[in-house]
């Protein structure tokens, strides 16, 4: 099984390496100026030259993204549970949340700076929380409420309390919905953190490294910082996938379906 999974990694690695090679070749062959598009080799060189700065920036931005992610997720789950319990609240809040989710929340970043201060990380974290919260809340609330009516009738036939129904049916039913939200918001949290950093906050973060180096025409360094940000996004996405796998073993059990015919043959 592990061998199969490793084999699955082969094609993307080949395509990725070939893509980098093509990029390098095109920039070199057409003589594209380095401020327009630097070669992958020079980006890698800048990455290692500026490693201490970039590592620090990546760590700080990663912390902002992760803390905002965790707070946004917890807040989304808690509010979803509360609205499921109180129907009128759900009917009032959910359309509102869908509407807010459709508005560009990053646009609030400069305003959050005024609210939470421009020198600390709080305003950047607030942007991440605001971005993460809505998809988590909306999806989890849907999963908690969109239960097959037969399943609710079954639980009522067992004379189950609302609490038991929540524990045995609604929460497990919401897990795949939550996992989908998690896949979306994990990389989104990094984007939110970097965009928020463009508008202020301490200067030793990925967002500021990108803007300041681009400002001095050191585009290859800016690209190195972007590469760093991609790695953070990928790591968080991978964590989301691991959480999904560990929390929902039933979704990843073998796919073979035992058909009625096969099973009847087996009996005779």
């Amino acid at each position: 099984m592990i061998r199969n999974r490793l084999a699955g990694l082969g094609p993307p690695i080949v395509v990725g390496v070939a893509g980098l090679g093509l990029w390098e070749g095109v920039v070199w062959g057409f003589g594209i100026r380095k401020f327009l598009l630097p070669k992958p080799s020079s980006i890698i060189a800048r990455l290692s030259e500026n490693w201490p700065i970039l590592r620090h920036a990546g760590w700080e931005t990663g912390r902002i993204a992760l803390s905002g992610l965790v707070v946004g997720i917890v807040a989304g789950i808690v509010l979803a549970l509360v609205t499921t319990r109180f129907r009128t609240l759900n009917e009032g809040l959910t359309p509102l949340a869908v509407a807010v989710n459709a508005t560009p929340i990053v646009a609030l970043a400069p305003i959050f700076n005024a609210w939470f201060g421009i020198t600390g990380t709080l305003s950047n974290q607030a942007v991440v929380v605001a971005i993460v919260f809505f998809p988590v809340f909306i999806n989890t609330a849907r999963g908690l409420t969109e239960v097959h009516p037969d399943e609710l009738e079954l639980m009522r036939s067992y004379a189950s309390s609302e609490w038991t129904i929540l524990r045995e049916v609604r929460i497990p039913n919401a897990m795949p919905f939550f996992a989908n939200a998690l896949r979306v918001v994990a990389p989104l949290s990094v984007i939110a953190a970097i965009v928020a950093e463009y508008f202020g906050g301490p200067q030793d973060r990925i967002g500021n490294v990108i803007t300041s180096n681009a400002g001095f025409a050191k585009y290859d360094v800016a690209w190195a910082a972007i590469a760093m940000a991609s790695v953070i996004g990928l790591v968080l996405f991978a964590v989301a996938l691991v959480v999904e796998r560990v929390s929902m073993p039933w979704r990843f059990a073998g796919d073979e379906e035992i058909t009625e015919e096969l099973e009847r043959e087996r009996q005779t």
Partner: protein
Amino acid sequence: MSGYVESEAAVVIDGVDKVFNAGSLDEVTALSGIDLTIGAGEFVSLIGPSGCGKSTLLRLIGDLLTPSTGKVTVFGKPAHGARLDQDYGMVFQHAGLFDWRRVAANIELPLELRGWSRADRAARSAEMLDLVKLPDFGGHYPRQLSGGMQQRVSIARALSFQPKLLLMDEPFGALDEMTREHMQLELLRIWRETGTTVVFVTHSIPESTFLSSRVVVLSPRPGRINSIVDVDLGERTDDTREDPAFFAKATEVREALRADEVGA
């Protein structure tokens, strides 16, 4: 056990009407003037066209709905009390197994809710898996099973706490014909082995005739009991399906259903 106890009524429906959305523009009378007594150990089918209220009637017995007038008594107590005491098991058209529980854990759910110990639950679910002839599938997840097998697990779950009454709402409606006939024989075997009372909702004439000791024929909106056909075909086998006596009974049920179209 004395013969009198065996002949005790499992379900008594007395003058029941069911009106949905009473008083509003979309008021619908689903059932009207229903009187029906189902004896303990009987296998009774409720048949009628779509919208005749047969599923509503089943839910009234299970106290998943409450009658607008009249009363429903299950094993001598009001339906509500019978539900709280979990006196019946329920099987739906949609098997309704929980994806996140393995097959054995699905069967054990009602036992878990009753606070049975782990060992007792495991013993009972193994016994139930044998009963529905799926002894090797306790460790599978429901989505790894075919529709017919899922429905058998659903029956095992409904019977796990040995209820004296089994309510079934078109349980084989979503299965292919071959599987359906196989499941009908399995259900009759289980019914004989457990001695439970079965109330079975279907819209299939052959199915109701093949399975039941009595077929209750309902007319459409408002649902009323049109007639009750007694079916005495002895022990059913696959040969019963080709027996002239079976065809005669199926015809009787069909005519009872049609009688109502002519009247309408």
